[in-house]
């Protein structure tokens, strides 16, 4: 399928899902109330739809797009179908950055949590790529990612442990479980800048990602400026992950699953997969957030919990399929 046609189709499905996510929620409306919300945006139903649900869905779309594109970029860069910001520890270290900023009382400074999460993601991204250059085996990289993720988790637990403020602790916990609840238009706008930059870098790296299909040596001899493209890919995916973590906390498995949903539609091309992965990621997060709101529980489910519940079995399935190809 042609890329533009595929993206248009996915965009239509995403628009439909986003519309559904704005329309549906804990409070149900009659047709007359929907009409009122459309005609008079400042009416009570209008406020629920446009001031509460729409920014939440917008943040879900942005976070999903960022995680989907970051996952596709990491998979292309590391030539590994199991790579994603969560599996490789980038999300965990980014979450650590956010938790540290909250614990240190920096939340009052605008952008401090976001910057701290971004810094964590960039550091983890650089470490992962350094390790990937040294250990080519996919199993070794995944194990290192597990270790980095565990270490990031341990340091985050330490931050919790040493936190003196129960409010900060509750805020950190909410962050780490991942949610787009109570987000406003400013949250979406704040996320947009680093995400746009990250996406631009990942798209610039596309030719390099495609060339890496044949391995490091072939890529180095290809005539493409691989060192620069690699930096674009790492910085881009880290920016996307950091911005997503800053906007919504840690939401796992979206970066892993989104590229696999569209892989066959772009014939596995690591360059053409970037946009469709972003759109698939957005669709996953919007639907997961809708599920989090619609599943009747005493307390609303956290988005990160929903994605992990569905994502972990999907990861196991992918690992099983990938391990067969490593043996062959």
């Amino acid at each position, binding site marked *: 399928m042609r890329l533009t046609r595929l993206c248009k189709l996915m965009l239509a499905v995403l628009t439909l899902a986003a519309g559904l996510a704005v329309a549906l929620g804990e409070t149900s409306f009659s047709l007359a109330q929907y009409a009122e919300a459309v005609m008079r945006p400042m009416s009570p139903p209008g406020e629920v739809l446009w001031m509460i649900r729409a920014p939440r869905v917008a943040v879900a779309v942005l976070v999903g797009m960022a995680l989907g594109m970051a996952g596709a970029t990491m998979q292309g860069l590391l030539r590994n179908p199991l790579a994603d910001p969560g599996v490789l520890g980038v999300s965990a270290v980014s979450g650590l950055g956010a938790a540290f900023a909250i614990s240190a009382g920096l939340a009052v400074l605008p952008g401090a949590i976001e910057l701290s999460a971004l810094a964590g993601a960039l550091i983890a991204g650089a470490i992962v790529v350094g390790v990937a250059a040294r250990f080519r085996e996919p199993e070794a990289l995944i194990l290192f990612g597990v270790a980095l993720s565990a270490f990031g988790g341990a340091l985050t637990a330490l931050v919790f442990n040493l936190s003196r403020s129960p409010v900060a602790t509750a805020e950190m916990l909410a962050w780490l479980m991942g949610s787009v609840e109570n987000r406003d238009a400013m949250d979406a706008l704040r996320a947009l800048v680093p995400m746009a930059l990250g996406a631009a870098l990942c798209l610039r790296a596309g030719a390099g990602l*495609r*060339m890496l*299909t*044949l391995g490091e*040596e*072939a890529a180095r*001899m290809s*005539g*493409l400026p691989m060192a620069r493209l690699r930096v674009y890919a790492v910085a881009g995916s880290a920016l996307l992950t950091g911005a997503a973590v800053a906007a919504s906390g840690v939401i796992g498995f979206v970066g892993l699953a989104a590229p696999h949903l569209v892989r066959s539609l772009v014939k596995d091309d*690591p360059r053409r997969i970037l946009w469709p992965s972003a759109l698939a990621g957005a669709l996953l997060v919007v639907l997961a957030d809708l599920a989090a709101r619609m599943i009747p529980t005493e307390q609303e489910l956290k988005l990160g919990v929903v994605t992990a519940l569905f994502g972990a079995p999907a990861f196991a399935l992918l690992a099983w399929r990938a391990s067969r190809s490593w043996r062959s």
Partner: protein
Amino acid sequence: MSALWTLVDLSARQGRKTVVEDATFSVKPGELVGVIGPNGAGKTSLLRAGLGLLPLLRGEARLSGQAVTSLASTARARLVGYLPQERRVAWNVPARMVAALGATDLPEAEADAVAVERLARVGAGDLVDRGVLDMSGGERAKVLLARLLATRAPLLVADEPVAGLDPDAQLLTLDLLRGEVARGAGVVVTLHDLGLAARCCDRIVVVSKGRAVADAPPREALSRGVLADVFSLDGELIETAAGPVLAARRVS
């Protein structure tokens, strides 16, 4: 005729180990040069050092007269196409996309046209849209060879292009590379089959312990002395109607 590739007293290291020592040889247009040597002798390291993929300790490597260390990656890619030993393809992309990766200097549509033509040339014209991971090892090797040919570079360097291929596919690969030589390219291949090297190459460079210990036409390069000293073989090349073949046994 000026050389496409010149190595002069080249020494290089990998990590802390010196893997190439004082290697000297050159490749001219219209020449097929075989690089042979036992496992671990340093054949791949020699190619990699000469292409600027390993840090050099001493000496120099030149591509069409220009020091390889001073060449930008785009300029280097115009002068040499390289088929590395690693054959793992990460994704199940179609053959035409793999072959088109040899022509990144062209717009996408032109690169695709070159790719399809080269795939037809290597006998993989019916595989253009098939995923490379759905192919046999031999079919995948053809696609990777098409990628090398798609570079259209004056010098083609192939590291073990016939490894793991059946005899027919080995001969086809070397015939295709000879075709490039006939078009005026210089071609360098590393090979393990000494008989095949003797039959197909114009010149042979023998590598032992990181050194180029012989550089001569096949009969000279594969003398009894070299076979014994470098390969621990007691044998010789015997002329047949199909070209020279190696008759040898291990030195006990």
